């Protein structure tokens, strides 16, 4: 049935997509933010060292005989040593004129004193970070402004950043993997509830239209509620139509019996062979009709009782002996013998009315197909389980239809001219299913049909 349902997406996929997509976005955000933060901190570290270097050079500036002298310590540049051996540039200006060092570095902005300025720029084919500081020297005549710029390439910084990026990327990937695993777990837990409901619907018997009683998550309550109400409506309309059929069959039986006895009386009276023939076929049609009505009634009764079995201990052999006795007159009319084989303990807990009905239908069926001067064998045995075989010498079941024959109103293709409604095997099957058994149809190797009720 599921192949008829139109599929639009998958809840599981949608949930998993949303959760893993969210995790991916989060992982990327974490990567970008942490890397940005690390870059900022690393840059601050480099700026601090450059700033310290500038300060130590500025501190060494003195005026001697009106000349600026700058005997800066070894540590000023020594502190700029890095693992990546970054290149170092510096420039010392006096009132904007290069005094010493590398030309073309950041020109100091006049007027700024205590504050140090930082800039990233290109110098000699490399990106450098420049720190610039300024100091005013008060001499005898005019104040002198000494500015110092110290620059450093960023190889060590980018090595550090690459290392941090790698670590953060690993961390982000780990976070993503963990979130994905969690999202799959969450998804399957959620979908699991739906699967459980599906299973309990699928496992139900074909007649079971009772409401669901197992607890379900609150989100699924509306679905289960509608399902329950749909099933109860279905159950009701099914019962109504069965009642209707049973009622109709019941009402037809009495008038049919009257028509049958009148037809038979007329048949005795008329002598014209043409009239006798038409009366005979009329009677056969009436028989067929009343038999169908009877079976419809039986079927309705079986359907009703199967839901509330009237259980008691039944001796199958006893029951069958009685049934055979009762049906022997009918069998003798067709020159067919009924023979019961038993002798094994055949006690069963079940509904005697239903069981009798099932056996009667099977024997009735066998009688219909059995040729004259043959014996129908009813055999009770318990190998491997308790079972009753009804064996005849008729044409057997058509092999290609053998699986379909127990369906309602299905008749074999070879039943032309025989009375029957197609309900006999259905009734036998419903009864044996209600008792937890099965109906097995087969053909005997020596010819004839074998219908077995296994309990």
């Amino acid at each position, binding site marked *: 049935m599921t192949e008829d349902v139109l599929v639009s997406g998958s809840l599981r996929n949608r949930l998993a997509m949303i959760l893993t997509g969210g995790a991916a976005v989060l992982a990327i955000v974490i990567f970008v933010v942490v890397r940005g933060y690390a870059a900022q901190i690393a840059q601050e570290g480099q700026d601090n060292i450059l700033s310290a270097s500038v300060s130590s050079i500025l501190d060494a500036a003195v005026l001697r005989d009106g000349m600026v002298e700058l005997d800066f310590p070894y540590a000023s540049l020594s502190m700029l040593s890095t693992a990546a051996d970054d290149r170092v540039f510096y420039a010392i200006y006096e009132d904007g004129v290069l*005094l*010493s060092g590398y030309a073309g570095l950041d020109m100091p902005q006049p007027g700024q004193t205590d504050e140090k300025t930082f800039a990233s720029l290109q110098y000699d084919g490399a990106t450098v970070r420049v720190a610039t500081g300024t100091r005013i020297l008060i001499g005898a005549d005019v104040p002198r402004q000494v500015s110092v710029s110290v620059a450093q390439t960023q190889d060590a910084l980018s090595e550090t950043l690459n290392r941090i990026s790698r670590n953060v990327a690993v961390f982000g990937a780990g976070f993503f993997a963990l979130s994905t695993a969690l999202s799959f777990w969450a998804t399957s837990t959620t979908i699991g509830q739906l699967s459980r409901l599906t299973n309990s619907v699928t496992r139900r018997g074909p007649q079971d239209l009772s409401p669901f009683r197992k607890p379900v998550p609150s989100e699924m309550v509306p679905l289960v509620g509608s399902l329950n109400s749909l099933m109860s409506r279905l159950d009701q309309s099914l019962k109504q139509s069965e009642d209707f059929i049973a009622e109709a069959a019941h009402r037809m039986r009495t008038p049919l019996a009257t028509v049958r006895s009148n037809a038979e009386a007329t048949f005795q009276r008329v002598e014209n062979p043409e009239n006798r023939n038409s009366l005979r076929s009329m009677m056969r049609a009436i028989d067929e009709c009343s038999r169908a009505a009877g079976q419809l009634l039986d079927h309705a009764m079986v359907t009703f009782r199967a839901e509330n079995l009237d259980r008691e201990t039944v001796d199958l052999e006893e029951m069958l002996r009685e049934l055979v006795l009762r049906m022997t007159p009918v069998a003798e009319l067709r020159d067919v013998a009924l023979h019961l084989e038993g002798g094994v303990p055949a006690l069963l807990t079940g509904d005697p009315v239903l069981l009798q009905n099932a056996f009667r239908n099977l024997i009735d069926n066998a009688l219909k197909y059995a040729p004259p001067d043959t014996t129908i064998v009813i055999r009770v045995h318990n190998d491997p389980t308790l079972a009753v075989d009804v064996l005849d010498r008729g044409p057997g079941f058509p092999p290609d239809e053998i699986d379909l024959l127990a369906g309602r109103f299905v008749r074999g293709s070879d039943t032309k001219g025989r009375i029957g409604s197609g309900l006999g095997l259905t009734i036998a099957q419903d009864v044996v299913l209600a008792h937890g058994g099965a109906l097995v149809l087969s053909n005997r190797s020596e010819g004839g049909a074998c219908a077995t009720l296994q309990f």
Partner: protein
Amino acid sequence: MRYFAVLILALLPVIGQAQVWEDRKVFGAATAPRNLQILSSTDTSFFAPIIESFIAQRADLSVEYLVTGTAELDDVFRQNPDRFDVVISSAMDLQLKLANDGLAQRLDGLSHPEWAQWRSSLFAFTTEPAAIVINNAAFAGLPVPATRQDLIEVLRANADIFEGKVGTYDVRQSGLGYLFATQDARASETFWRLMEVIGSLDAQLYCCSGDMIDDLARGRILVAYNVLGSYARARAETADMLTVILPSDFPTTMMRTALVSKATSEPALAEAFVGHLIDLQSAGAAEDFPLPSLGAFQDTTGRSSISLEPALMTYLDRLKRQTFIREWESAIIQGP
């Protein structure tokens, strides 16, 4: 930069004439299709076996080996960086500045200890301590100085013997002399007292270690301060008259360095030569590599060398240099 411009101007008369080399030697066939120009401050005798073993594997190669002083080497190279393929010098500060100024090629194919290289472009391949070399005959009956302080005391107590007989580098001319002097001054005030004493004895000033050792051997001077130990040892082994003393108070140990010019026309060959150099020094066989290897003074005495770091450029600063030279002059040149 202006400092160099001034220096270049000062040296123009020298350069204006044809370049005068201290030594110049071509190894291999002069007609060889490929040619490697090596600019060096190291005497040819030390490098001959190294270059010969290099060209032995390369038949199509000739090597021109050009020798000049450390300070002049720096100027010559800055003027024509495309003329030379490999630059070798003992003046670590000038070499580091060349690399810092982007004139050196990165050689990422070479593996070398972190402390012995800078930016994969400047490679140290020797360790050579600055030494005190004395004339044994002059010190007969005098205590042999083990430290700079001992030397000060001996010189002071025997001014009559040593007057005009003490030699050291002229730091204004020699890049290596300037490096040794500035590193000494960094390490201890003793340096300045020693300079005062040497100055009071009418110091003889030299451009190069070789000249100083020649004069020592001839008896023109009796003591030399801050001579390259490696050069002195090369002579002391043949002449019993000299003793090489490595001061035990604090060492000043230089590492000779090599770089490949960024403008080289033979980058692969030049890199191979530097690789050959550092391979030979680690193999350490004296006949293949006559200079003291990197490990020679590192592990035995725990002496640490001057480290390769940007701080080496400190004393190359124009103002710093001006101040240092002035102080040095006032100590060493004491008018009569």
